[in-house]
């Protein structure tokens, strides 16, 4: 009884360590991320691809209103997995931080600088009294003078740079596929293809181009560009995966 009472104490306060050095609220936030649909980032020499599964729970929802990919600045995009509302808050932070860089130094923010600003902000929410950690992981993708970068920001406030990474539901399966199939010499569209393949591997249903969100930041232009459904369909058609065909989709 005593033991259980104590456990509840460090279970509840985010600023309180458990005797074995764990922060339970931060771990619970990681669980919240796993409940979200998967989001994948793939870095290639020509740019970074972001792919998000936005499978909707009702056919009455307008799929475009489900926000998983966000433009942060001309050259940076963010993809999220977990609590969408928490993600929006961080995306707004990132947008303001990017513009602050422009005002302060007259230059575009570096991807690493932005990623670390975001994770510093996330970290504050694991140590400030009264706060709740963010129940979201972000993929921060962008280019810096033609150099592509891809960072993951997790609920504890750690920024990790990746060549290819998945966050959210089915992460282990998807990451496994990326680990096996990733090569350095992909084009951006091939990066999108790799991510979609990985997504297909984790799902029993065929891939529906209308229910994945795709964007890329291309090194040549240093610009964030969302893909339209037709572009995604073209990429999916070239893959050896099951897809929802157009007629079925338009019903």
């Amino acid at each position, binding site marked *: 009884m005593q033991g259980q009472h104590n456990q509840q104490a460090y279970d509840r306060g985010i600023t309180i360590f458990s005797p074995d050095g764990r922060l339970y609220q931060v771990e619970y936030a990681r669980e919240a991320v796993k409940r979200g649909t998967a989001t994948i980032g793939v870095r290639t020499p020509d740019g970074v691809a972001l792919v998000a599964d936005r499978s909707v729970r009702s056919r009455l929802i307008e799929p475009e209103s489900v926000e998983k990919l966000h433009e942060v600045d001309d050259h940076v995009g963010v993809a999220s997995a977990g609590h969408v509302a928490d993600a929006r808050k961080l995306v*707004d*932070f*990132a947008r*303001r*931080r990017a513009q*602050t860089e422009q*005002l*302060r*130094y*007259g*230059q575009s923010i*570096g991807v*690493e*600088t932005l990623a*670390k*600003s975001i994770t510093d*902000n996330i970290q*504050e*929410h694991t140590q*400030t009294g009264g*706060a709740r950690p963010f129940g979201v992981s972000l993929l921060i993708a962008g280019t810096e003078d033609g150099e592509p970068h891809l960072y993951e920001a997790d609920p504890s406030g750690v920024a990790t740079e990746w060549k290819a990474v998945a966050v959210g539901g089915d992460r282990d399966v998807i990451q496994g596929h990326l680990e096996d199939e990733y090569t350095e010499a992909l084009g951006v569209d091939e990066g999108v293809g790799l991510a979609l393949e990985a997504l297909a591997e984790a799902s029993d249903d065929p891939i529906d181009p209308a229910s994945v969100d795709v964007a890329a930041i291309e090194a040549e232009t240093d610009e964030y560009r969302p893909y339209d459904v037709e572009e995604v369909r073209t990429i999916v058609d070239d893959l050896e995966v099951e897809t929802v065909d157009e007629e079925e989709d338009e019903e």
Partner: protein
Amino acid sequence: MNDSFENVGAENPFEPEVGSFQNVQSDQEGEVTKTGTTTVGLTTADGVVIATDMRASLGGRFVSNKDVQKVEQIHPTAALTLVGSVGGAQSFIETLRAEASLYETRRGEPMSIDALATLAGNFGRGGPFRAIHPILGGVDEDGSHVYSIDPAGGVVADDYTVTGSGMQVAYGTLEQYYEEGLSNEEAKKVAARAVQSAVERDTGSGNGVFLAEITDEGVEIQGHKDFDDVL
């Protein structure tokens, strides 16, 4: 860290991160030590050369110091001149130096000179009125840069520029002797000659010349009481 987590991301881009500016009343404007001053900045083929005179005066009418260094390194490859109120210029330099160092420590690479000039302009405009008109000179990946930062925070890039009370006299010399593609050695002579002209005719300028030479390797600053040492 920010005051509250409601506010994060909204820090003032026109104020330094390392402490905010003091709001000093400057109603004794005429009595504070001023540099009077002639400072010259030239872009060269090798980098940047800056020359400054060595006099501090009270309102340009009394020589309060005859051995003043009016050019200071603020960045691994950039320097700033002190022109106008000495107190304003000193705090300006200390702040910029701290911000440039913080930036480099955080990001593992030095600030570009353009970013440094933007920051200097923001601080000139954002804080209390400083009554200063420095020259910023530096070298980065994009090459050699010279900026004039005016008292209201205006930032103007040029191939060569002059600020201070001896400005017209020094410009006269530069119009005759400055040319593109000078080596630093040649430019040091041209810059010293411009300061020398001002020293002869401007009461706010005098007592020798400091020369700063900037390349992608760093900043070297040396004072000369006698112009013959450098001409």
